[in-house]
């Protein structure tokens, strides 16, 4: 029986009222590849951050090689042999491979950095894990896959005993994935424990020994990979009905007119020939994994990013949308997934944030009518039941749900007809979530049309009249709510992988 490296029990973590981790548990043995799975927001990344000391837990305990630990920061966890390979690599493109590996602990000879020793050591390192990379080339010249191997080599050079791989294959090509798995095999031989985070089911079943599933910050269960099936894992990941169950059938009249029609939209790498229609009063759910191109599609439709090609029709008329200003003129509005970065002016008041899009309507003879602006902000925020002591309250002091409402109020003033909600309930608590759902349903009932991007399947199934599933920049399914279920959506969301492998 292999030794246990890591034991995390009942880890708790709360962010300003939102419970990210409730009672997360995890265990890792020597020479084991242990997959950590869960939907977006299930708490995987938070758990890893607690492990390596970026976040301090509010409760629970961590045992590392039999000793109870709580690392104060990442330097301590690294010193103890824990390395994390992030989805996005944190390395210096303008330094050589060897310099990247030994940054911060360069070998020194005669008060000078000993480059030849550094290169020799790097070569030895690459030999140990069996990859061919020239340590003298600039890191930026390597492919993402090779860069990842450099990062792994760096971890090995630090005598790492626990390696976390956070979606390592997201940006890799097929042969690169193969090479990565080969290296992981070598590391397994050396007794290094690996935590493997990925959404790709086929990779999990191939490489991992055990799978632990998390959901809503809670531990769901751990299974041996060879004693389970993909379906069982998917079921563990999504198997719950928290938000009042699935909508049974579409509320939209079959003959309702199309308010928005997108034909063959292409934009960059992540939006490939996307076509869809949005009917009046419809809630159209966009499901898919992170990086499937849903946000990119929305941003291209909205004119926030450049499109390469494609036509957009509104109420049957062709329109040209090259900037958000054009989109707003055509009655489209967009509520970003990242409110703080793309939605709010944090240092300004509720009133100023509400009126941001429509100041022009409240200027008479060159003077802004502040009283009228405050009145309309109050009216719309009152309608949405935004909880704020006054319109002059700084928006940063509001909770996530109320901040979201302020942005909805912004667009209500503007009287938009098409709402694009990108992850409308990210980072807001359960109570505010159901209010948000009611709000979207009310908007749809009023005849507004809604595109809702969400990574929470329960949310998609609860609200949508129709569901579009995207995978790697393409639409893989377009189904009516009556024929949708979680397993089916999950299947289409990972379509390429399943087809490619089986």
């Amino acid at each position, binding site marked *: 029986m292999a030794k246990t490296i890591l034991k995390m029990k009942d880890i708790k973590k709360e*962010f300003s009222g939102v419970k990210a981790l409730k009672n997360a548990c995890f265990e890792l043995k020597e020479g084991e590849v242990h997959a950590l799975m869960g939907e977006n927001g299930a708490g995987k*990344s938070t758990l890893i*951050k607690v492990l390596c000391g*970026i*976040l301090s837990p509010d409760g629970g305990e961590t045992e590392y090689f039999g000793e109870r630990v709580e690392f104060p920061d990442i330097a301590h966890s690294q010193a103890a042999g824990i390395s994390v390979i*992030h989805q*996005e690599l944190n390395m210096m493109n303008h330094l050589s491979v060897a310099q990247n590996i030994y940054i911060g602990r360069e070998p020194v000879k005669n008060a000078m950095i000993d480059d030849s020793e550094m290169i020799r050591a790097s070569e030895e390192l690459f030999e140990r894990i069996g990859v061919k990379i020239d340590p003298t080339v600039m890191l930026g010249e390597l492919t993402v896959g090779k860069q990842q191997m450099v990062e792994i080599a760096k971890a090995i050079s630090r005598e790492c005993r626990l390696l976390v791989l956070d979606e390592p294959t997201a940006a890799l090509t097929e042969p690169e994935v193969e090479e990565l798995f080969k290296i992981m095999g070598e590391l397994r031989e050396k007794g290094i424990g690996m935590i493997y985070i990925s959404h790709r089911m086929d990779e999990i079943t191939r490489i991992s020994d055990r799978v632990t599933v998390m959901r809503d910050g809670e531990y769901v269960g751990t299974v041996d990979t060879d004693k389970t099936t993909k379906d069982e894992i998917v079921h563990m990941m999504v198997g719950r009905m928290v938000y009042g169950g699935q909508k049974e059938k579409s509320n939209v009249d079959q003959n309702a007119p199309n308010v928005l029609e997108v034909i063959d939209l292409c934009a960059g790498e992540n939006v490939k020939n996307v076509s869809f229609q949005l009917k009046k009063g419809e809630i159209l759910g966009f499901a898919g994994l992170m990086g499937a191109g849903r946000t990119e599609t929305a941003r291209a439709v*909205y004119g*926030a990013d450049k499109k390469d090609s494609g036509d957009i029709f509104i109420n049957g008329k062709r329109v040209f949308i090259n*900037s*958000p*200003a054009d*989109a*707003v*003129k055509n009655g489209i*509005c*967009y509520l*970003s997934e*990242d409110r*703080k*970065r*793309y*939605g*709010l*002016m*944090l*240092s*300004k*008041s509720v009133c*100023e944030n509400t009126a*941001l*899009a429509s*100041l*022009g309507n409240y*200027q008479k003879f*060159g*003077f*802004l009518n*502040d009283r009228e602006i405050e009145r309309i902000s109050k009216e719309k925020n009152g309608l949405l039941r935004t909880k704020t002591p*006054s319109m*002059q309250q*700084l928006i*940063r002091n509001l909770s996530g749900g109320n901040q979201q409402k302020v942005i909805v109020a*912004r667009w209500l003033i*503007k009287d938009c007809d098409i709402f694009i909600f990108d992850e409308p309930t990210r980072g807001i608590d359960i109570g505010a979530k159901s209010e948000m759902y009611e709000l979207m349903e009310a908007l749809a009932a009023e005849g507004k049309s809604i595109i809702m991007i969400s990574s929470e399947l329960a949310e998609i199934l609860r609200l949508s009249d129709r569901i579009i599933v995207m995978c790697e920049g393409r639409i893989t399914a377009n189904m009516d709510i009556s024929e949708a279920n979680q397993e089916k959506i999950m299947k289409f969301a990972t379509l390429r992988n399943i087809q490619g492998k089986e």
Partner: protein
Amino acid sequence: MDNLIIRSKNNRFRFKFGQNYIILFALAALVLVFFLLNPNFTDRYNLVSMAQSLSPYAILGLGVTFVIATGGIDLSIGTVCIAAAVVAGKMYTSGLLGDNLWLTIPIMIMIGIDFGLLNGFLVAYLKLPAFIATLGTMMLSRGLSALIVSDPNIFFPGGTWFNRVFSNNNGIPTGIFWVLGFALICGYIMYKNKIGRYILSIGSNEEATRLSGINTQNYKLIAYTISGLMAGVAAIFWAAAFPTVAAATGNGMELDAIAGVYIGGTSAAGGVASVSGTVIGAALLVVIRNGLNMILAKFNLNLNSTYVTYVLTGIIVVVAVLMDVIKTGKRNKFRIRKREKKS
């Protein structure tokens, strides 16, 4: 100016106005110290002279406040101001404008606007970093004006209506009234017109403003154009106060004006601007320069007053901006935490 919006119970405005009190207090304290050390400091003659040199700095500051409010910077204002004065003055002295001294006014303003538009185009549409774009126009305007006008000095006529209207009418510092007038107009644009609101919104969160359907490029262009226009306007007051304009004078003028803006409480990160603070900040700098001059002269200290002024100004700018940093510190911490949570 700020009290137009002070009626809100918003902490930020209260704090901003609080900072106004602090610099007003600092200004009063400095005047008192200088008066005690050299009673001549508050001579009518000296006060008028200070008011005269205040006008161009305050007006440059008012203009660049709009750019700083967007989170940008305009380094070219000083050299554009001198370029406008030199070119218009040369046109007049060479007889090109005949006897019409008034024609120099629209010429100076037009030159300012042109450079402002150029800056705005480079920053808003070609997306150059503001520091680099305006550093370029700064050098460009200095070089071009010196090339066009080869004379080392340009003499505007002294003692004419021009000086009386814009600088000093028999001991009445007329320039100061213009400054107050321009401050009112700038306050109106900044706080009561959507142009200012959107400029401040861009400074707060440019991407959120753009995604709200605002044409942020246009508003940035407007901010830089206002800055250039005011540099042209400042040239009028410069020429009226100091009729001998040399292409080499006014080096570092932009830095004095910008320092005044920061001292006045406008945030270097954008989003928060104080128009009244800019005028008070400019006044503070003028008082320091003049006061130190007089003290050094009186006590026969063998120190170069310009350098002493720099030392003192430097300290004040750092302290003023430090206050801004402490004030926004909470927000920054919040941002960092947020980023950790996301990644």
